[in-house]
């Protein structure tokens, strides 16, 4: 089989054979991730439906909870770490997040700005009347 022979590059530290890995450590990671995500989800639903929080702050609170839950997914399920193998993934993710931010924020700002500069309906009626 060629694949196992070539899967280790020169200088690569040989990976711990799967049989020697403690299965429990992986299980714990996923379970903690699930619990955290579940807590954040339930909290989001509660925030949206409660009157206990100052109303203008609710969207901000929901956004924070969503971002926190995305972080939980990234770390616990997608294994984004600061290890050397993960560096490229982190950099690509950072660039992706930058693009997403620019597209979203830019589009919202521009569309809001364009909307504000739209002529009001009343003005159009006046123009017609003036003929």
């Amino acid at each position: 089989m060629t694949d196992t022979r070539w899967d280790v590059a020169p200088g690569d530290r040989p990976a711990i054979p799967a049989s020697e890995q403690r299965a429990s450590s992986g299980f714990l990671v996923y379970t903690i991730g699930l619990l955290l995500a579940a807590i954040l989800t339930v909290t989001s639903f509660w925030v949206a439906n409660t009157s206990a929080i100052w109303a203008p702050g609710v969207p901000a609170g929901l956004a924070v909870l969503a971002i926190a839950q995305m972080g939980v997914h990234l770390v616990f399920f997608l294994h984004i770490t600061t290890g050397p193998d993960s560096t490229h993934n982190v950099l690509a993710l950072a660039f992706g997040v930058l693009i997403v931010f620019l597209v979203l924020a830019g589009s919202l700002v521009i569309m809001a700005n364009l909307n504000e500069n739209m002529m009001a309906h009343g003005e159009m009626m006046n123009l017609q009347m003036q003929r």
Partner: protein
Amino acid sequence: MNVAVEMDDVRQGELLNVSEAGPAPKRIIAGFGFWIFLLSDIVMFSALFASYAVLAKASAGGPTGAQLFNLRTAAMETAFLLLSSYSCGLMSLAINSRQHIGVYFGAVVTFLLGAAFLNLELREFHDMIAMGAAPQRSAFLSAFFTLVGCHGLHVAVGLVWLVLMMIQLSIRGFHGVVVRRLHCFSLFWHALDIIWVLIFTIVYLMGVLP
């Protein structure tokens, strides 16, 4: 003469510095490549999110989000997808341990939960269209169906992919390329759950706020 020199045999456990270590193992390269694809997919979703955000209030006198969205359904869909992400994670652990039974069990649970999610979503779409809230009714509804529908399409494709991967696993066993493809699938599935977190927050939860 040749510019190349022969690489000496590397003693086990000795790490060369990055410029001498040679190409990375395939599992890392495949994961990184798929990660870049996922990021491009996320950029596409961000354009759909931006459109939804701009058009969320443009209901053209028709049904609004607050009238249409059923938070109980959204909560169940969220639970299904989150649990399917969890079962996908357990499936990844079984793959690492090369246990056939564990992998098939994890895959079946993931598939059933994903299918349940799709079922709820399709029912929701059907009910909305039946009561007149079709994609053509208003810009808000067009944006809603495009964004949520696109996510649902990704879930459906993921389910088909999962079935194909189980077929391939049964034929070829834990061949290197099969393991790498399963790793890519789990990345895909977890990313879909991340997108769903944003959907249920921005579309459903913020949609029903007064």
